[in-house]
């Protein structure tokens, strides 16, 4: 069996809000294999962002174990974690979070700069290919404020992939986009997932995304409500049904 690229074992996450304890994640366990295209679904406040932050090694669990490529973020120094994030994980944010003073090309190149990589000709060609892949060839020199939301998110997707990460984490990547634009972004992600075999973990409450997922982990009140479509070679997978199955399990209607 292939080693899981992400593993959560009985993970709890609590926040202190004044004197009250907010339990954002309440005993979550799941595992994701390399190359999966997974959707974390759930209503607002259910704990999706909190889970993705832990998976993305920018936050630690209060208890339980979060392993990314077999590594536990809690055991790393801050510099090690920075390096690990830079080389292993790509991020796509709901608000795009591009660097405003950098143009399209520079934004995509930026993680390589941060990682101290030498930008030689072959790297530049690779970046240009990536730009072509996300359809921004005509916007290389544009700064983010001259791009539409959809274009910005394309830049963000390209930026997330430039370092050949094992995992791309996208927290509600289409929430600020209209239906069609969001759909295009998901298509691009799916294509890149197939092309490079990168593991994608996407949080959303958009039906459009859920309908196109291969696996849906539903979260409610910080708990896994259902986990459907888990990579299992013995199971005869019918992707079209995942969404319905997930929906049924969440709503509790026995369909």
């Amino acid at each position: 069996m292939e080693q899981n690229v992400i593993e959560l074992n009985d993970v709890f996450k609590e926040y202190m809000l004044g004197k009250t304890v907010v339990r954002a994640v309440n005993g979550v366990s799941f595992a994701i294999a390399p190359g999966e295209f997974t959707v974390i679904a759930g209503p607002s406040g259910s704990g999706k962002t909190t889970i993705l932050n832990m998976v993305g090694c920018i936050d630690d669990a209060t208890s339980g174990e979060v392993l990314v490529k077999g590594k536990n973020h809690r055991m790393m120094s801050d510099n090690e974690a920075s390096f690990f994030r830079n080389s292993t994980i790509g991020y796509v944010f709901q608000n795009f979070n591009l660097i405003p003073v950098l143009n399209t090309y520079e934004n995509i190149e930026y993680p390589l700069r941060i990682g101290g990589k030498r930008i030689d000709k072959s790297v530049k060609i690779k970046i240009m290919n990536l730009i072509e892949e996300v359809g921004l060839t005509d916007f290389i020199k544009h700064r983010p404020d001259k791009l539409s939301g959809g274009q910005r998110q394309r830049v963000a997707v390209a930026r997330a992939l430039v370092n050949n990460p094992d995992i791309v984490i996208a927290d509600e990547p289409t929430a600020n986009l209209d239906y069609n634009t969001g759909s295009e972004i998901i298509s691009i992600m799916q294509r890149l997932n197939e092309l490079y075999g990168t593991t994608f973990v996407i949080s959303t409450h958009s039906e459009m995304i859920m309908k196109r997922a291969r696996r849906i982990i539903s979260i409610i009140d910080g708990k896994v409500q259902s986990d459907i479509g888990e990579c299992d070679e013995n199971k005869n997978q019918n992707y079209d049904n995942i969404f319905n199955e997930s929906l049924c399990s969440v709503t509790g209607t026995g369909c």
Partner: protein
Amino acid sequence: MDQIKMSLRNLLRNYKRTVLTMSVLVLGIVGMLVYAGYIDFSMWGFREQTIKGGLGHFRVYKKGYNSRGSERSINYLIENEREVYRLLMRTAHIREVTPELEVQGILSNGEVSEITLGRGYDVTSVSIIKDSFKVVEGEFITDADSYEIALGSILAEKLNATIGSYLTIMTTTRQGGLNAIDLMVVGIIETGIDEYDERLSIMSIDIAQMLLDVNAPERYVVMLDDTDAVDSVTASLKDSGMVSELGIEIRTWSELAKFYHQVKEMNETYFFITQLIILVIVAFSIVNTMRMVIYERMREIGTIRAIGMTRAGVVRMFFYEGVWLGVFSFILGIVAAVGVAWVINFFGGIYIAPPPGQSTGYHTMIRPDMIRYFQVGCIVMFSVILGSLIPAFRAARVKIDESLRYI
């Protein structure tokens, strides 16, 4: 796209604020430098005035004169006058050498008597002395063996003396005998310092020697062609061995001008305090700006941390922005300060009312001093960089997930 270039773009991103912050810095630098220039000009003027006002660049005495305690100065005259004079006259940089003899006595017009501090000079060679006061009435003594005297203006008033009046001066000779000579008033002078104008009288050294019944000066006042040459000239005189051979000692103007040093020290203290105040303002405005910048860019900080920037990298990012701010302010500040100084000087300086104890005001100029400019520029730059580091360190320590949630 390296970080240094990126930090420059970040500064330009909110150029209005950058300009505003930089104006505070530039104003601080200009303020400090104009003030420094004013102090430097005053001190330079004060120094030259002190030197030309009768102190000379340095003075030569008989050995032991300055440590004689309560003994009369008349017992420490330069008896080997010719040799000393010849030595001085053949030394480089020395422009003028004047013998001097002080006479303390009582001046009387027959009805009123006043104590006077008389000074006997070689009246034929005294451009030095002529610079130390203004002749407000009559003229200066021109003839070495004429029985003439010039009086401080207040002293003249007290004695009801006008040009052409005759006064009797009474003194004690070296041996202790009483001596008196009648002198004609030829000039009335003003030094600008009331205490002097109340006591000072000037006469030819021949008359002074006659009054004290001696035939040597008590000191030589030496003028150089350049104030900066004082140390090298006195050092070479001492090194030559002639000083000890002739039994003389040397005191430079700086050693003699206690008041000059007190004023200088006081001014330096004022300047230091002003500098400190301005520095605190500069530092506060920088910390404030950078804090605003950092709050505005909180999510950006979270983003770059998420994609792998280390804490040190974040600090460096804001550090570079601080450096740019500092460097630009440094350059602009110095250019502006030079400009302001030039304009002030062009329009004749700033009028300063008469200081306490003096009767005339004066115009002060700004004296630009490159070392000062560099110092002040560096201090400001340093505080800017420091001021930007403090918030930067805090920004680097913010938890990534929190900065990403920041709206």
